[in-house]
């Protein structure tokens, strides 16, 4: 058995699967994945719980499996959240430095951060993250630690991710109903980006796109900090649904065809190819045109990238992604998806690799598990901060704790 305090669990209640990843933090701060549990998800659509009974059962199964594999008892989880209601924006806090010598103190920093986080959200919304970006001292930007600098005006940018309180609470309540504590809720896209990106990539500027079953979550980093987050309520379910409609087959069949014959690009050689669908007895039921199948898929996936592209264009971030684009989520498995994304976004695209986590090879290599691994990583950052000085990050926890309590 392990010392409890070193165990960190990430739980993603996804649209396609529920998965729990158990991580162990070594004395040197490195992370080791020691358990993984998963269950097919039946109570979630577009990233949000629609059937509590089913979802509860699926979460329970995933947790039990993870407990068995890791041989630990799970009591707390970092819970991933997503859904169309989740939004991100940047906010600036301003604080005049009043000390006689104009030297910026720790208190000034705390105050300016507090100002930046004092955000007027509609009452039905709740902050999920308020992440510090950079400081400005008398308008000069790019300051990472202003303490000790001289100046009269201190400013800071924070990236705020927020969502509808009641929709966030649905997931929290469900987990609590299973006698589990929620350490924190974390936006899935943020978790995935933590799992995939190195500090250098964050510094250079990168986009992570997690295309799951019901949502596409994305996060942009520039100059080492989170700049932009977004959720599109479109995912692999849409691909399957389009196929079911276009090929006139049941959804379950469409899903199978997608996995077996799918591709993000339509190449010449598939022209005219057909697949014969047979029933249990092997008798032919129907033939499906492979070109049509791929055309339908390709158009849907292309649109997802176009929508993300338009959003980044609008945010003016397109020219800052010098490390490129990284894909994860189950749909990253679609053959040729990276070349399609490159065509649309005109930038190098690759499949993301989980970064600086070791342990179960089977878990680490799967694009579906990136979010849950990222949740563990998020948890480990938080634990590290808590163990060190009482950091600014506590403030976020404070803002959240009321949400967690109320659920």
């Amino acid at each position, binding site marked *: 058995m392990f010392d409890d305090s070193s165990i960190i669990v990430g739980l993603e209640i996804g649209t396609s699967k529920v998965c729990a990843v158990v991580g162990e933090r070594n004395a040197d701060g490195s992370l080791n994945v020691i358990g993984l549990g998963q269950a097919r998800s039946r109570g979630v659509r*577009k990233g949000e719980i629609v059937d509590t009974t089913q979802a509860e059962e699926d979460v329970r199964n995933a947790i039990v499996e993870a407990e068995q594999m890791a041989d630990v008892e799970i009591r707390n989880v970092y819970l991933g959240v997503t859904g169309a209601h989740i939004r991100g924006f940047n906010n600036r806090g301003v604080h005049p430095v009043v000390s006689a010598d104009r030297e910026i103190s720790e208190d000034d920093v705390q105050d300016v951060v507090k100002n930046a986080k004092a955000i007027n959200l509609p009452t039905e919304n709740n902050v999920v993250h308020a992440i510090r970006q950079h400081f400005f001292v008398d308008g000069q930007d790019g300051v990472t630690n202003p303490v000790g600098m001289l100046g009269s005006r201190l400013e800071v940018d924070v990236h705020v991710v927020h969502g509808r309180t009641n929709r966030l609470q649905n997931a929290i309540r469900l987990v609590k109903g299973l006698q589990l504590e929620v350490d924190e809720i974390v936006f899935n896209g943020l978790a995935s980006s933590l799992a995939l990106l190195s500090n250098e990539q964050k510094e250079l500027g990168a986009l992570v796109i997690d295309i799951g079953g019901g949502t596409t979550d994305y996060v942009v980093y520039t100059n080492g900090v989170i700049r932009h987050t977004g959720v*599109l309520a479109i995912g692999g379910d849409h691909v399957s649904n389009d196929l079911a409609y276009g090929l006139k087959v049941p959804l379950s069949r469409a899903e199978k065809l997608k996995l077996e014959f799918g591709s993000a690009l339509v190449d010449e050689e598939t022209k005219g190819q057909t697949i014969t669908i047979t029933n249990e007895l092997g008798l032919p039921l129907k033939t499906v045109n492979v070109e049509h199948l791929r055309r339908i898929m390709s158009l849907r996936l292309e649109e997802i990238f176009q929508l993300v592209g338009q959003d980044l264009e609008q945010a003016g971030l397109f020219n800052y992604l010098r490390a490129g684009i990284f894909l994860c989520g189950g749909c990253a498995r679609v053959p040729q998806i990276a070349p399609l994304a490159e065509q649309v976004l005109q930038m190098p695209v690759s499949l993301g690799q989980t970064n600086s986590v070791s342990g179960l090879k089977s878990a680490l290599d799967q694009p579906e598990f990136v979010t849950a691994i990222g949740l563990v990583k998020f948890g480990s950052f938080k634990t590290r901060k808590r163990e060190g000085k009482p950091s600014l990050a506590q403030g976020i926890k404070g803002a959240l704790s009321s949400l967690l309590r109320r659920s």
Partner: protein
Amino acid sequence: MKTKVQASAAFLEPAKAPAVKIFGVGSAGVAMLDTLNGGDFAGAGFVAINTDASSLAASSAAIKIQLETKLLRGLGTGGDPERGRAIAEEQFATLKTACDGADVVFVVAGLGGGAGSGISSVLARAAKEAGALVLAFVTLPFACEGNRRQQQAQQGLDQLKSVADGVICLPCQKTFKLIDENTSVLDTFRITDGLLVESVCGIWRLLTRKGLIRIHFDDLCALLRDRHSESVFACVEATGPARAREVVEKLVAHPLLDEGRALAESSAVLVSLMGGKELAMAEVNRVMEQIGRQCEHAQIIMGAAVDETLKNRLSVTVIAAKQGPVPMELPPLAASGDSVEQVTPRGIMARPGSRCGSSAPSLTSEQREQILAKNAGTRARKTGPKMRQAQLPLAIISKGRFDKSEPTIHKGEDLDIPTYVRRGVALN
């Protein structure tokens, strides 16, 4: 083909009534203009503008302007608003002449295609330069018409908003609530036509009828101008002793007002009441009180007028506007200040009435011949733009897996519908 304004009925109107010209732009706009032309718009000038000769040929408008360059060969803009815009710029002088003599210009168009989206804002600018106030009535495409049309429409709308004094915008998608699944495409468009026409009528009456309480046109423009999300409108009627209560009930239940939610959320509401001779102030008050309760956060502008032809009907037009996010580029305020002056009674009376009669655009005989030739030559063409519209898969697609979840709507487009369907990609 008529090339003169219908009649000089405008002369007979009391001097106070502003001279109104109604322009239909693009195929949808021209079609909607025809629907309007049947109604009661005594004194208004009707002008149809399109690049597409067959659409103009079918129009009953008194004045038809075909914007044409050799390149187009009467075939329209090919759906590209940039071309529509370019031709309109080229013929700017013609457009301006066409607006001559009007105090108020209505621009009616279906945004999304090349002509309506491209030409409307140029026309609006020409009308402003000719000294008129400009109010645009436009539709946005159905979600299933696809992304490109939506984007073109949005762009056209933004351009219009930056020049016109007011824009009333009806997203076609909203009318889905009003129709059952089996309605044909053309009937669906008839319904949108009908709704847009209602709002034109509502505002027309507001401007031209003797008012118990007159709405100033500048109030109306101010209401529409600074609200950059769409304005929604509804027009309802009731008769009988309980008509005051009934109109409010109908308004609150109106699908275009999102079952009353639009009223509750709006920041400004314009209410225009219209009744027969016996319309009484007490009744007006009763209606206003109840509407006021529905829109607590709104600034309310109201007007009431008598229209004898309504007899015992009470008709209420409501325009509700929401304060949207302020766009990056605001039209300069000075410009709007100028235009407001034009509607003061002084400004209007200063215009010699006779100018209304001579407002035919000064086309050279050569140009006119050209138009005539074009129209004659293309009348027989079968594949007009409407035919193409008719093939759009408007049938409502079962949402399959997403039946029970919140629809994924992006800029008015329902993304749960397969992409290939929305983009009109044919398999086979």
